[in-house]
């Protein structure tokens, strides 16, 4: 491998430099300021000129000289922390015990090697950023390392996929595979109807499962967080590089994004897929649909600012039309796959109309009209049903921005994790504020990014999205927040010359800045782990629990009524088109009091409508208990009380039980008996 400074024989350095400048000229002298960070990897490219065949280039290469000790040391220093970190991480996986997770979830179950690995990765990353010659591949490698530790750990440590919602989505894919892809666009499926009305993600998965020849998506579901996060690296890099030519800032921003993204919307879900498309469309719009705008008062100094970037050049109309044509497919896929994200994207492009440089009425129209057509056709029944409720919820800022369903974390672990979540989010927001203050040129130049990040905020006013809205708003704002948060870690450069064509090496930062980056990234990394994995006690379902529910579904006839204390159990929605559901934790007010006072009687009244051949069942699992306890969904001891009451009742029969839970079947008394005693020995199994 040729090192920097060497070049192919017969090609003097100067002529290549001249040729490079000619290639970069676009008729404006400002174009030579394109890159204040001359890419050292460019020295390895054959010089511009008539294309020569690959074989000829190879023949003309000089023999590769063996690496000197110095070069070897450099490579070792760059690769060492990564290699050692991954090795330690892999070792920690074997030593992690997931059988008995506590209030801190996986964060308390991983051994010291895990934290050491994380520290090494952070250290190595900050180290490679300081070296000008390693600005693309090494940071990318370290980012993959970070993502492995953050989001592949759970896939490797747990035998089954996490989160009840993953299982819900698996059930949807299973149903579509089983019924030949027949979508039900009416509201017959009640709460599950939107997944058919916006079936894009599930349709794609069903097609993938069939063409690969899998039985279902279970085999790869656990890897969704890692894959969906890996996909995000590309659009993030592209968005950030629109606003900064400094690759250290770009990569630091990418890292802050992943460290701040604790909300866990990366699992196998339409939202994860939609977020990738959202960022991708934004990246393409910001890169390619800029307009030429007079520079303004600060324009030239902003461009010359080492952390900033040249404004993106405007493309001719023909190319803009081609870009719109290209964007039509992802926008269509987005409209088909997710309810919320097209709205966020539409608002973002509307907001960009305020910025002359990114005023694109046609792009905004595309992004608004395509989902509107979908909503008016495939998803029409959803809106017919929900619009009145949505109109009522509109404007209720307090209710809409309150996370969750009124649950509150209970216990040292959950409470600490909740504070860490908030702390991590607040830290990113605070850093972003600091970055905005510290670098006015970035603030001005990065205004489109800032506006796009703030665009989802009004949605917090509009709707609660099932208690999820505040988390989604944070997630959509996170790219912009990360960029300015990263900027906070860079010092203000010494006053640059006013000459916009001034280039030069990226401004040097002192070792103290590296230490600051190390400290901040280290703190964020350490906070991320419990924020992201702290609820694993409720998110992880051991195989026993899955077997229990599978056994129930195997014997429950179509039309049956399945009641659970809480929705947090795996396969809760298996064969959901055949069953009806109720979750006792949803009961509020007087209903809840009745439930807790006399659980068996409440359930009997609740289940009495079920007629043969359908049955009614009560499922109580360990995962539900954890959720109820850790989230404070029901008063302490409620689950035990419900179970004891049902166990003692003659109208319920225990039909399934294992270490993970128990299933009761409701056995109503025979309707004709009047004088016989309430207990019928033939029924009491």
């Amino acid at each position, binding site marked *: 491998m040729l090192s920097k400074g060497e070049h192919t024989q017969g090609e003097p350095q100067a002529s290549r430099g001249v040729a490079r400048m000619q290639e970069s000229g*676009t008729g404006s002298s400002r174009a030579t300021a394109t890159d204040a960070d001359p890419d050292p990897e460019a020295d390895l490219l054959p010089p511009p000129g008539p294309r020569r065949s690959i074989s000829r280039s190879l023949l003309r290469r000089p023999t590769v000289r063996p690496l000197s000790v110095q070069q070897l040391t450099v490579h070792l220093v760059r690769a060492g922390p990564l290699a050692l970190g991954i090795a330690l991480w892999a070792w920690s996986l074997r030593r992690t015990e997931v059988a008995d997770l506590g209030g801190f979830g996986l964060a308390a179950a991983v051994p010291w090697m895990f934290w050491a690995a994380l520290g090494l990765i952070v250290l190595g990353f900050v180290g490679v950023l300081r070296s000008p010659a390693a600005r693309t591949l090494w940071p990318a490698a370290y980012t993959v390392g970070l993502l492995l530790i953050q989001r592949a750990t759970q896939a490797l440590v747990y035998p089954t996929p996490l989160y009840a919602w993953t299982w819900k989505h698996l059930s949807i894919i299973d149903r579509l595979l089983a019924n030949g892809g027949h979508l039900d666009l009416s509201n017959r499926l009640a709460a599950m109807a939107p997944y058919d009305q916006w079936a894009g993600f599930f349709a794609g998965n069903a097609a993938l499962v069939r063409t690969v020849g899998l039985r279902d998506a279970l085999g790869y579901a656990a890897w969704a967080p890692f894959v969906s996060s890996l996909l995000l690296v590309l659009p993030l890099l592209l968005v950030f590089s629109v606003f900064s030519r400094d690759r250290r800032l770009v990569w630091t921003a990418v890292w802050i994004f992943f460290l701040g993204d604790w909300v866990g919307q990366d699992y196998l879900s339409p939202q994860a897929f939609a977020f990738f498309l959202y960022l991708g469309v934004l990246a393409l719009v910001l890169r390619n649909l800029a307009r030429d705008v007079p520079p303004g008062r600060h324009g030239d100094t902003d461009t010359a600012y080492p952390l900033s970037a040249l404004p993106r050049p405007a493309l001719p109309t023909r190319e803009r039309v081609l870009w719109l044509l290209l964007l039509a497919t992802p926008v269509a896929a987005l409209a088909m796959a997710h309810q919320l994200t097209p709205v966020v994207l539409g608002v973002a492009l509307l907001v960009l109309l305020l910025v002359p440089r990114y005023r694109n009425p046609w792009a905004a129209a595309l992004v608004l009209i395509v989902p509107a057509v979908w909503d008016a056709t495939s998803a029409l029944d959803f809106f017919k049903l929900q619009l009145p409720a949505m109109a009522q919820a509109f404007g209720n800022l307090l209710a809409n921005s309150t996370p969750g369903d009124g649950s509150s974390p209970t216990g040292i672990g959950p409470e600490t994790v909740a504070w860490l979540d908030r702390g991590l989010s607040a830290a990113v927001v605070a850093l972003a504020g600091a970055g905005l203050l510290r670098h006015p040129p970035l603030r001005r130049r990065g205004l489109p990014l800032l506006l796009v990040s703030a665009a989802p905020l009004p949605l917090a006013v509009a709707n609660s999205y099932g208690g999820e809205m505040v988390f989604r708003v944070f997630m959509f704002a996170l790219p912009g927040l990360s960029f300015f948060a990263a900027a906070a870690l860079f010092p203000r450069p010494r006053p640059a010359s006013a000459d916009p064509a001034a280039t030069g090496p990226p401004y040097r930062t002192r070792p103290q800045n590296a230490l600051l980056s190390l400290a901040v990234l280290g703190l964020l990394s350490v906070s991320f782990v419990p924020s992201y994995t702290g609820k694993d006690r409720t998110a992880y379902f051991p195989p026993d629990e899955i077997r229990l529910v599978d056994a129930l579904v195997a014997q429950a006839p179509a039309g049956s009524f399945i009641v659970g204390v809480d929705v947090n159990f795996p396969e809760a929605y298996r064969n959901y088109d055949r069953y009806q559901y109720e979750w006792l934790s949803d009961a509020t007010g007087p209903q809840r009091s009745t439930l807790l006072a006399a659980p068996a009687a409440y359930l009997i009244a609740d289940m009495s409508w079920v007629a043969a051949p359908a049955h009614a069942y009560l499922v109580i699992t360990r995962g539900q208990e954890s959720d109820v306890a850790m989230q404070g969904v029901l008063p302490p001891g409620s689950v035990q009380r419900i179970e004891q009451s049902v166990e003692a009742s003659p109208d319920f029969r225990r039909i399934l039980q294992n270490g993970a839970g128990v299933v009761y079947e409701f056995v109503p008394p025979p309707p004709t008996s009047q004088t016989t005693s309430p207990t019928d020995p033939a029924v009491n199994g």
Partner: protein
Amino acid sequence: MTRAGTAVLPTGLAVRLALAATGWVTVACTQALPDAFPLRTLVVLGFVLLGPGTALLGLLRPGGEPDRGPGRAWERTAQNVLLQLMLSLSLLVVTATTLMLLDCFTGMRTLLALATITTVTALPPARR
């Protein structure tokens, strides 16, 4: 047309023919190889993630490369790869959903549709 751009995008008849054939090679793999066979998995994933998007991008690729200068090579490559992934996954979603809406969905039909789209968009010569 920059070097890094051509390294990733299709030009030349041979490349276009090869790209046009990828979908059909994938179809053949799904027929010839057993379910969940590793090679079949790799081929299907490779095609589904990159095939249709690469073909569509080759057809509609906007020119006027705004990124001059070798320092931007990685950005051009990153953008092209992003487009290939986005377009391929989007075409998968749109195709599968459309087939479901038309009540004629099967995995094979989805793959055939994607292979057809890939062929139709890969064959026309590049505009420049």
